[in-house]
């Protein structure tokens, strides 16, 4: 047998060992998918969240550490949204009430991160988010940092302006807004997934639309139980 053969076999053994090690280092939650009615497992230890630093609605730092130690539900919003975002925030308030009614041992914090930090300052978010529940946390900050978090969580948004004839124009990702965009207004097309973050500061599951709070509450209890077992 040639030396080349031993090198190939050795490399293959090392690769298998590395895969087995990575799998043994974490739980596999995919088996839960059959029991879940609203959530989809997103847990992936190979792809942890990037390091980020934003501001909460009180102006305090909101970073990776802010997601650690407690369960959280993270969603992206913007306050100029008249339909989807207020619906989502109202749903989160209903979900929290549902978990309280079920006497769930763990009620996740709700964190609403803006897609639109230009208009949604921490001060704006504080007034806006508190309308739905005083304990909800609004988060704003640097666009690039938000964009990184959006990418990490598989979310998406695009800004849309209207020309003089009323025709919609979708701006490219890093295209600056026209000077009169604030005055004339712009809307944001966006995904509306809600993310369940575990106390290690990583995403465990995502809830696509439509959000049925009864199903979400049941799944959250299942996911927390599986994580803590």
């Amino acid at each position, binding site marked *: 047998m040639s030396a080349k053969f031993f090198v190939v076999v050795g490399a293959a053994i090392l690769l298998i060992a590395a895969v087995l090690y990575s799998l043994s280092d974490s739980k596999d939650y995919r088996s839960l998918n059959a029991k879940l009615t609203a959530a989809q497992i997103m847990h992936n230890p190979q792809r942890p969240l990037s390091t980020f630093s934003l501001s909460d609605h009180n102006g305090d730092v909101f970073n990776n550490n802010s997601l650690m130690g407690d369960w959280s539900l993270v969603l992206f919003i913007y306050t100029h949204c008249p*339909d*989807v975002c207020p*619906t989502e925030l*109202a749903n989160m308030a209903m979900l929290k009430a549902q978990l309280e009614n079920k006497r769930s041992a763990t009620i996740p914090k709700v964190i609403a991160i803006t897609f639109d930090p230009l208009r949604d300052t921490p001060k704006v978010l504080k007034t*806006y988010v508190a*309308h739905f529940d005083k304990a909800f946390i609004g988060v704003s900050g640097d666009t690039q940092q938000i964009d990184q978090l959006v990418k990490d969580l598989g979310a998406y948004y695009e800004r849309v302006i209207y020309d003089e004839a009323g025709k919609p124009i979708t701006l490219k990702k890093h295209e600056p807004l026209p000077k009169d965009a604030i005055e004339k207004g712009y809307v944001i*097309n966006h995904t509306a997934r809600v993310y369940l973050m575990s106390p290690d500061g990583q995403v465990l599951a995502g809830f696509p639309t439509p959000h049925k709070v009864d199903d979400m509450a049941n799944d959250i209890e299942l996911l927390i139980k599986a994580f803590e077992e």
Partner: protein
Amino acid sequence: MLNNIKKILFILVAFVSITTNAASHAHQNNHENHQITITDSWVRSAPINAPALGLFMGISNNTDQEVRLISAYTKGYKRIELHRTIDSNGVMKMVKQAFMPIPAHAKLHLKPGSWHIMLIGPEQVPSEGEQVSVNLKFNDGSTQTIQALVRKGRVMMKHHSMH
């Protein structure tokens, strides 16, 4: 005798006046077009600094032809637009509409996650329980003024679908 004539004349004038008013009122009602009926109009209660509010309702078209809602007006807002939320592979798109079509003998539901009227730039966000007077204009030339109640959308959202 003269008094009797006066009485008869008075009764005749009163009768003509009443019937004329009634006819005029009926005519106005026709002009307002009760072939289009609006039900359960409401504005979603919003934070005091909300830059935009959603107005929802049911619009029934009881005629044999499609009618279109072409505009809505209420004072105290910078702009009012007709919109529809469309779920495009999980991306919720807010699409401005030139009009809202209501097919013949059908009802269009304006509801969260679907068709809605967007009230942009309120001078003051109305409080829960308030009534907002809104004038609706249709393509058949008719108009309707409705009183939309400001309330939470929870009842509607229990069965809410994004489609």
